[in-house]
């Protein structure tokens, strides 16, 4: 009896479900049914005992065992099955329970010899389900209200009356719902006229119906497809139907044709208007901003504005506030060059921040931008201008060079020409008044003065060291003058050179140039010891230049034939014109310092002649409109040519006919150029009153270009009548420069 409450409970829980399902009117018979079942209890409980306990196991194991055993035990179990059937039929009382909960039978397996449980085979015939009809009442399908007044409800199989079960009143019904746990899973059986508990299957069906599922629990809607015709050996060789293809498959449908023709006709008659034009009045709107126009490149996205920094705060930290110096520097800068367009300002409160003072201006410039500026990307070259300057050594490292005016010597007229003695101790300077002054380089005291007729055109000291004299070029004459205070041996040698006692034999061809020596008695330090009279109307000698050996001298006159060039040989007292005819007006001539070459500068060209072979070697084209000056480097490989058009051309004579470098740094015409004989220096003077000194290092290595470094601009001469510094000359042994200016001063520039 211990198990009774449990079964009761089960019934009660099932009854709850039924109570929910069925009308409460049935609850009273359920109550009575329950009461009745107590009577039969010992019978049923004996069979129920194991059933109830084992229900979950049996259900699950029977399924699996049935499947697992499957084919293996089919034949073996044949006999057992029949046995079981017999047993079932014999045990008819238990058929109801047996059907719902098939009882296993424990037998000893023939094969394994182990005990095993065997479940009865369920026969799938129609009668097999008769278990559901095993009620005692066999009254059949008659209306049950026929028995309403009778004490029985029908008759059982044996013809005995089946008594109506007792039914309690409402209170019993209530008590049964409280006490019997399975009351809520029981339902009223019409035939038995009593409540019967619902089986698990029935409850499951109810649940499924509630959940809108298939009521049959065994139905699997997703069971795997059975492949009847696919796979090897299952293919159907013959068609399933041999019927020929119906005609409608290939004959065009008349009905469709009629239908289509009807529409066509309607279109033709205008009853159907195909693609009716859209309403013309409707405007088209384009989103011009969102969609890029295809013909142009997409516009540049606006740059993202920079995030504000601390310095832009209205109350920046103290270290962001500019000092007075920084503020002044910022204000001094051009607005375009400023790194920031504001100055950090400190306000103690946000309400004290004034209005944006540059608002109007910013708007205005924005308008200007829109109005004036093309919307293009501005390409700005970020090149540091200092990197464009060539790397040159500093002038300080190239000392010595003249950098200050040590002393000044004053002439009354323009000091047009100067010359420095080959030992570098004396300077002669000639002015336009015909005065030639001799002064010592270092003190500037005039030691001797000569007066000649007319302008002094040129002056040049003889480069020989064993004799001492200089040549002064005046109108149509060259005067040879011996300076004072020369040693007696030098004086004698000079005298014998310039005024030999026995004159050399006269040349075969008479020259128009006359060499005249005054008689010995009239010699004086104030007059020339020898005078060379150039042919008449030859004009003023513009230039006198010596061959380095001091025997040949060339002079260029402003007028006359043969370009005004005369070559004088001192020892033979003979002059000749080297050129019969020369194209262009000769400006300057120069002897090559080492080779027998002769440079002749006309207005625009410099020609180089070989004197020994008497032929033209080269024509240099400096590209200068009017050549004013020229000098050759002491090495003889480089030539500088200056012009009145301010240009200075540096020629590498071994390189090209074109200038290696063209410099244009003077603001006015270049007047004179000079290479220093020993130091790597050259100077140029100009009508702007300035002298520029350059470092010019020439390398023996042919691969290395000459180094030209501007060193110093010497200012000190005043420009008079548009003329500045007329001539510059270097001291022989010192880096000192002597310059003669149109203002009448001759300056010595010392290092």
């Amino acid at each position, binding site marked *: 009896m211990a198990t009774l409450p449990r079964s009761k409970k089960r019934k009660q829980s099932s009854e709850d479900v039924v109570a929910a399902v069925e009308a409460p009117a049935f609850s009273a018979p359920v109550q009575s049914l329950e009461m009745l079942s107590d009577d039969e209890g010992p019978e049923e409980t004996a069979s129920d005992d194991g059933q109830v306990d084992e229900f979950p196991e049996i259900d699950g194991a029977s399924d699996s065992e049935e499947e697992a055993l499957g084919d293996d035990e089919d034949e073996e179990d044949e006999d057992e099955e029949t046995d079981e059937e017999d047993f079932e039929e014999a045990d008819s009382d238990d058929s109801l329970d047996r059907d719902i909960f098939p009882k296993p039978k424990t037998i000893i397996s023939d094969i394994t010899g182990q005990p095993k449980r065997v479940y009865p085979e369920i026969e799938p015939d129609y009668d097999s389900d008769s278990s559901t009809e095993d009620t005692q009442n066999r009254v059949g399908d008659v209306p049950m209200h026929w028995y309403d007044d009778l004490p029985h409800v029908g008759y059982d199989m044996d013809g005995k009356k089946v008594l109506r079960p007792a039914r309690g009143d409402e209170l019993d019904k209530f008590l049964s719902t409280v006490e019997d746990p399975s009351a809520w899973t029981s339902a009223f059986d019409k035939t038995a006229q009593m409540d019967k508990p619902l089986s698990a299957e029935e409850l499951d069906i109810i649940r499924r119906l509630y959940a809108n599922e298939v009521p049959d629990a065994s139905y699997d809607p997703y069971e795997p497809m059975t492949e009847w015709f696919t796979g090897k050996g299952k293919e159907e060789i013959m068609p399933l139907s041999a019927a020929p293809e119906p005609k409608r498959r290939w004959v065009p449908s008349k009905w469709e044709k009629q239908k289509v023709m009807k529409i066509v006709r309607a279109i033709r008659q205008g009853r159907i208007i195909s693609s009716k034009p859209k309403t013309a009045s409707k405007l088209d709107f384009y989103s011009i901003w969102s969609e890029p126009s295809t013909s142009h490149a997409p516009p540049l996205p606006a740059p993202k504005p920079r995030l504000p920094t601390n310095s832009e705060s209205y109350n920046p930290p103290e270290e962001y506030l500019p000092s007075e110096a920084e503020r002044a520097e910022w204000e001094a800068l051009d607005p375009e060059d400023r790194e920031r367009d504001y100055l950090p300002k400190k306000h103690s409160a946000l309400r004290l921040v004034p209005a944006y003072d540059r608002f109007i201006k910013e708007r205005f410039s924005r308008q200007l931008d829109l109005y004036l500026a093309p919307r293009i990307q501005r390409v700005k070259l970020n090149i540091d201008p200092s990197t464009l300057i060539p790397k040159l050594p500093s002038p300080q490292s190239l000392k010595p060079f003249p950098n200050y005016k040590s002393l000044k010597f004053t002439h009354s007229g323009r000091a047009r020409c100067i010359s420095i003695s080959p030992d570098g101790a004396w300077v002669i300077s000639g002015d336009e008044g015909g005065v030639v002054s001799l002064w010592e380089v*270092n003190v500037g005291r005039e030691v001797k003065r000569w007066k000649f007729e007319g302008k002094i055109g040129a002056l040049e000291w003889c480069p020989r060291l064993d004799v001492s004299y200089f040549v002064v070029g005046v109108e149509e004459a060259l005067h040879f003058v011996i300076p004072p205070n020369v040693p007696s041996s030098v004086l004698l040698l000079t005298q014998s050179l310039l005024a030999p006692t026995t004159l050399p034999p006269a040349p075969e061809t008479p020259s128009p140039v006359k060499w005249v020596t005054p008689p010995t008695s009239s010699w004086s330090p104030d007059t020339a010891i020898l005078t060379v009279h150039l042919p008449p109307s030859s004009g003023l000698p513009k230039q006198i230049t010596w061959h380095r050996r001091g025997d040949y001298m060339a002079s260029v006159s402003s007028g006359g034939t043969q370009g005004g060039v005369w070559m004088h040989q001192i020892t033979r007292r003979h002059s000749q014109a080297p050129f019969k005819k020369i194209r262009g007006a000769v400006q300057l001539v120069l002897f090559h310092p080492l080779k027998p070459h002769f440079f002749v500068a006309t207005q625009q060209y410099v020609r180089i002649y070989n004197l020994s072979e008497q032929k033209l070697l080269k024509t240099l084209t400096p590209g200068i409109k009017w050549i004013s000056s020229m000098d050759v480097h002491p090495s003889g490989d480089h030539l500088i040519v200056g012009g009145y058009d301010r240009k200075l051309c540096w020629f590498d004579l071994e390189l090209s006919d074109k200038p290696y470098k063209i410099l244009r740094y003077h603001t006015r015409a270049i007047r004179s150029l000079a290479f220093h004989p020993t130091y790597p220096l050259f100077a140029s003077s100009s009508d702007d009153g300035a002298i520029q000194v350059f470092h010019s290092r020439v390398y023996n290595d042919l691969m290395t270009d000459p180094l030209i470094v501007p060193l110093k601009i010497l200012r000190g001469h005043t420009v008079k009548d548009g003329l500045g510094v007329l001539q510059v000359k270097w001291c022989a042994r010192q880096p000192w420069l002597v310059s003669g200016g149109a203002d009448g001063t001759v300056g010595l520039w010392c290092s």
Partner: protein
Amino acid sequence: MAPASHPAVFTTQSPYPLPPQMFMIPATWSRYQLSQLVNKALTLAKPIPFDFLLRGDLLKTSLADWCTQNAVGEEETLEIEYIESVLPPQKMSDLPHDDWVSAVSCQLEQRFLTASYDGQLRAFDYSQHQTWSSAIHSAPITSFCIVPSTSADSHLIATASHDLTAQLTEITLATAQKTKPLASLHLHTAPLSSVAANSSGSQILTASWDGLVGLWDTVVPETDEVPEPAAGDRKKRRKIEENKPKRKAPLMVLKSHTARVSGAVFNDEKTAYSCSFDSTIRSWDLEHGVCANTITSSERPFLSLSLAPSSAPFTVLATSTDRTISQYDFRDPHPLASLTLTHPATPSCIVRSPRHPHQILSGAYDGAARIWDLRSVKGATPVASFKPWDGDKKILGVDWKIGGVVGVAGEGGLGVWKVGEGA
């Protein structure tokens, strides 16, 4: 706020020492207040102006300014050396000449001797009168010196000239003014640049543009030691036969310079120094006539030379065309210019103070004579400067006599100035 003050200790080499004592000196004080303080501390009867040297720098501003310039803290004890200050030079007289004056000497009693570019030697007394003149050379005289001699009234003068000779002349200035050319010194083949005599008067040095230095004695030879050139102008010489100086040959020729020798001085009886345009200063061993030591500077052609003031033996000062005066010490194995005084123009001449151990006087082509104190090396500014003439007339020679008389010779003639040497 109390004015800042500096602790300071005063030192001196002058004859007015202070007891060693620490002074607290207000930072705003400058030279004047310091000088007053020292004078008060010394309790001198007659106040003496002092100048003050701070770390070799002459104090020209206030003490505070000097400290900020030199980054000296307030707590540091300053060692202030005081020196007698140089009074502003005063012009005494101006003696114009017809030509440029190349050299001046104040060494004679009551006389100034000048040598001029017209070849004349002139003597002036202190009352600005020319007492004597004589045409010694036909060419400009570049330099002269008075050869010290024992006789009182006659003086031996050595002159160097552009005419390639130097000349020894005996002059008498006192009563009967006489000029007697004694000997002409024939060696050089180029104009002479300077002449110098030693202190005993036995030897003369001549420097010439031909790179030679001649060493001569002062003995007048009986006959010509150098033959006359075989020139034809014998008639002229005959006329002045009796007055003709003897032609004298050098004792020794000092030959090492490669360019013009611009100055030569005796150091003592046995050594001499010479400077040249080849940027060297050489010391000569006069006994053997060899170059004992050479100081080579880079690209600094020297124009003139002077011995450094008595405080520095074996040391010379030389002016160069790069507008500096440099001091070189021959004892230094690798001599560099220990001191450089920068001028605005070419300094042409230099003389040391006859009495003061640290002062020199230089004359430059800008017409200013400057007095330098060699102790105040840092600033390299002159202690005092004056211009004898208006404009930029060149100064060619200076001389300084004991007593503060300075003769300045140059383009404008001769200027005589009084330089206060401090009592």
